[in-house]
């Protein structure tokens, strides 16, 4: 099922939950789309600056350079920066898979096996000038059963707000609890 939420900056997005089996859940968070007005604002700013330079230097290569810069900049932004959807696949006995799909179609995946996962928690931290809630996976310290060796933050680009994070947290905890009751 799908429901709407807001990101930390106020832009709208959606959370989609799918239950594949009793111990397997997929949670996909869709990021706010690239806005047409911001795209046209950046393009106009770059082209106005290039036209200003052309008027100063009377060199027409400035204009073609500006067009190429805008085009390549947009391609690089869509391929490396703009995340379209971030998803979390929790398989009870196996592990957790984190996938980010970019706007150009590229997908990057990380898998963390269940033996390394200590817990999935909602942590709050100072980010830039705000305090934000974010979901993170705590990795087990092999030497110390109570210790945390690493923190893996999730949903970095979509940054959903607390109501969406609580839903994801509850879904994950239902699966993580099963490994305490049935350890083999």
């Amino acid at each position, binding site marked *: 099922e799908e429901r709407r939420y807001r990101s930390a900056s106020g832009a709208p997005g959606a959370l989609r939950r799918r239950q594949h089996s009793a111990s397997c859940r997929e949670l996909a968070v869709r990021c706010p789309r690239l806005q047409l007005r911001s795209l046209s604002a950046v393009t106009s700013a770059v082209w106005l600056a290039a036209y200003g330079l052309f008027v100063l230097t009377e060199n027409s290569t400035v204009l073609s350079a500006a067009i190429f810069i805008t085009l390549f900049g947009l391609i690089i932004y869509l391929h490396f920066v703009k995340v379209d959807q971030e998803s979390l696949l929790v398989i009870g006995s196996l592990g957790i898979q984190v996938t980010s799909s970019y706007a150009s179609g590229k997908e990057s995946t990380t898998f963390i096996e269940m033996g390394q996962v200590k*817990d999935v928690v909602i942590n709050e931290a100072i980010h830039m000038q705000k305090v934000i809630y*974010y979901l993170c996976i*705590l990795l087990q310290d092999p030497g110390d059963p109570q210790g*945390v060796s690493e*923190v893996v933050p999730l949903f970095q680009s979509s940054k959903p707000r607390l109501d969406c994070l609580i839903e994801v*947290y509850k879904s994950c*905890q239902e699966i993580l609890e099963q490994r305490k009751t049935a350890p083999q």
Partner: protein
Amino acid sequence: NSPAPLPERAIYGFALFLGSWFGFMLYVIWAYVPETWLFSLGLTYWPQKYWAVALPMYLLVAIGIGYILLFGINMMSTAPLNSTHTITDNYAKKQQQKKFQEEAIPALRDIPISEVNRMFFLPEK
């Protein structure tokens, strides 16, 4: 160590007041009186008058940069989102568990984040 007025503090305050007035008058004389008059008095070994304007300017620019620098240092020393410093620190790792006593208030301790999350976000059964 109270901040109450004492005779010694009054003397220090007055000495500082006189000293700062004297320093200010010296600075004003050095900045405004033409060099020829000072030379005729026999006072020749003064710094260049360029510094009478340059030093206050340096001071003001340093104060302005200091604001921005402090803001930047704060932002740089904030722990990133993926560091364990947002979860725990040395004192919390080394804390000792006190024994639980009946009918007594539990001792103060750092509660692990998993427990805090369960208390906040999972509904009570």
